[in-house]
């Protein structure tokens, strides 16, 4: 399994560069329509073919990497920060706060994930940002639970007791000693969650609740391809393959990190 870590890490790095600097990889405008060249199959001029408006699919996939990956990455980032805050609060602020927060997390978990996202998007309106917020709400309980458990576990550690003995305040101990050590499992959860969030984010774009047209986004590109499935396979094939490769890379790297942490524990 360790063999697949490096390819995964390389693909992940490549995707990050692609998302940040798409112009390095293509000089073609992703939104330039050419109505004389609609639904062209892959060729020398258009490596991955063109879509129903004659836009170059390769350019759109390259420029789509940022918006597509940002929904999932944004969701994980938001959930991580909010989840750790909630988890630390639940662990540190006494029984009542713990009970209230933990039961609230149960309420979030009682609604099937995607439907909770629909509720959030219904309130905020469609778009990449609202989709991220919705997905963050859904994945927040996981981060909060891990953070809470880690804080409680570390509270008994000798160095934490020593820090208390030196007269450090509770907030200082949490910030300087507990949090840095609790972050490992939280980061593993973040990588493991990221794959599912990328799929969920592209699903939301696919049904029209993500970034709005003409933004190039992999899920939205797949939605466009739907009407032309009978005549053109390439607009449906390549954006989906891009999502799959991204998720696979994230999963491989996340799985590797998880096994390393688990081995360290036992």
């Amino acid at each position, binding site marked *: 399994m360790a063999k697949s870590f490096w390819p995964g890490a390389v693909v992940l790095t490549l995707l990050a560069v692609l998302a940040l600097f798409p112009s390095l990889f293509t000089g073609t405008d992703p939104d330039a329509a050419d109505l004389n060249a609609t639904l062209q199959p892959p060729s020398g001029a258009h490596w991955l073919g063109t879509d129903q408006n004659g836009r170059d699919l390769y350019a759109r996939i390259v420029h789509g990497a940022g918006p597509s990956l940002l929904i999932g990455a944004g969701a994980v980032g938001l959930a991580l920060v909010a989840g750790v805050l909630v988890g630390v609060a639940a662990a540190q602020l006494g029984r009542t706060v713990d009970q209230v927060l933990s039961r609230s997390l149960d*309420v979030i978990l009682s609604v*099937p994930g995607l439907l909770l996202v629909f509720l959030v998007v219904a309130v905020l309106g469609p778009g990449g940002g609202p989709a991220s917020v919705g997905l963050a709400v859904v994945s927040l309980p996981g981060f909060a639970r891990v953070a809470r458990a880690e804080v409680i576990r570390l509270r008994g550690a000798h160095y934490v007791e020593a820090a208390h003995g030196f007269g450090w305040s509770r907030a200082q101990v949490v910030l300087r000693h507990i949090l840095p050590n609790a972050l490992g499992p939280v980061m593993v959860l973040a990588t493991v969650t990221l794959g599912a969030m990328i799929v969920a984010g592209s699903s939301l774009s696919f049904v029209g609740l993500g970034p709005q047209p003409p933004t190039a986004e992999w899920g939205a590109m797949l939605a466009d391809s*739907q009407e032309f499935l009978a005549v053109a396979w390439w607009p449906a094939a390549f954006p989906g393959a891009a999502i799959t490769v991204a998720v696979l890379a994230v999963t491989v790297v996340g799985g590797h990190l998880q096994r390393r942490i688990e081995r360290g524990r036992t």
Partner: protein
Amino acid sequence: MAGVLKAPAAEAVAAGPPRRRTGPARLVLVRVAASAAVLWGAVTATFCLLQVMPGGTADVLLARSAVTPEVRDRIIAEYRLDDPLAAQYLAYLGRIARGEFGDSYVLRRPVWDAIGSQLPHTLLLVLATLLVTLVASVLLAVVSAHRRRWVRSSFSAAESLVVALPPFWLGLLLLTVFSFNLHWFPAIGSSSLSGLVLPTAALAAGPVAVMTGVLRDGLLRALEEPFVVTARSRGIGELALRLRHVLRHALLPATTLLGWIAGSLIGGAVIIEIVFSRQGIGRMVLFAVENKDMPVVIAIVLLTAAVFVLVNIAVDILVWMIDPRTREAGS
């Protein structure tokens, strides 16, 4: 899950031997009470949401549809919107408890009517997918729990790949190949049995892959147990050994996973229904989200939460039935 199950047993021990009630009735009671509290929390959350949304609650419920002043007054009376917040909240709780989700002013029909006509299609898809997931993953796990390493690792590589496939993309690929090129299955929203095949396949692929992995790990662990040697020494066939003795041990983690899968299927079905232009709550909930039709969105969210909670209670009971150890924990 196991923790939840063991809690009542531990209490029984603390109370002394005469009160050893760890039966299913008590288990169900504890779980139902906890679930009811969670659902009450969910209803309360939707009430707060309606309050904080911009515009008056009546406008939110109307979703900017044009209605006569009489209809508007009726909403205000029904939801008691002119009363203090506490009275509004009680009225809201009462309505939801009685199953009154109000009217959709976008669809211009009662919410229940709209959902009732679409829900059976979605349930059919979800149940078919669950059935396929159970049968396929048990078969694949029994076949792939092999002593040869390459058999196991090629199965688990295939599983990783399938899990990474977005279900809606798999649906598009299946449509391209089997409907548009081979013409084996109907392409556009058909309620016939053959129209169910491709959506079920697209929705089941991920769960089958996850479940097969979990079942195989369980099988391999159970195959190391001493009772396997005993069974083999009695001359039992390899397949019979796996199906009759080992599978039961592997089923436990898989059953707890089933609850989670059922929850994700409800959301997944919405997306798959769009891919295959099927009837069901998918198109309805999306239309409602796009139009901010809150009565419909809230009703569907609360209903699916209720279904999800019921499924999880059922899963706990299943675990109790499969594993005698969870029953004897207190004795």
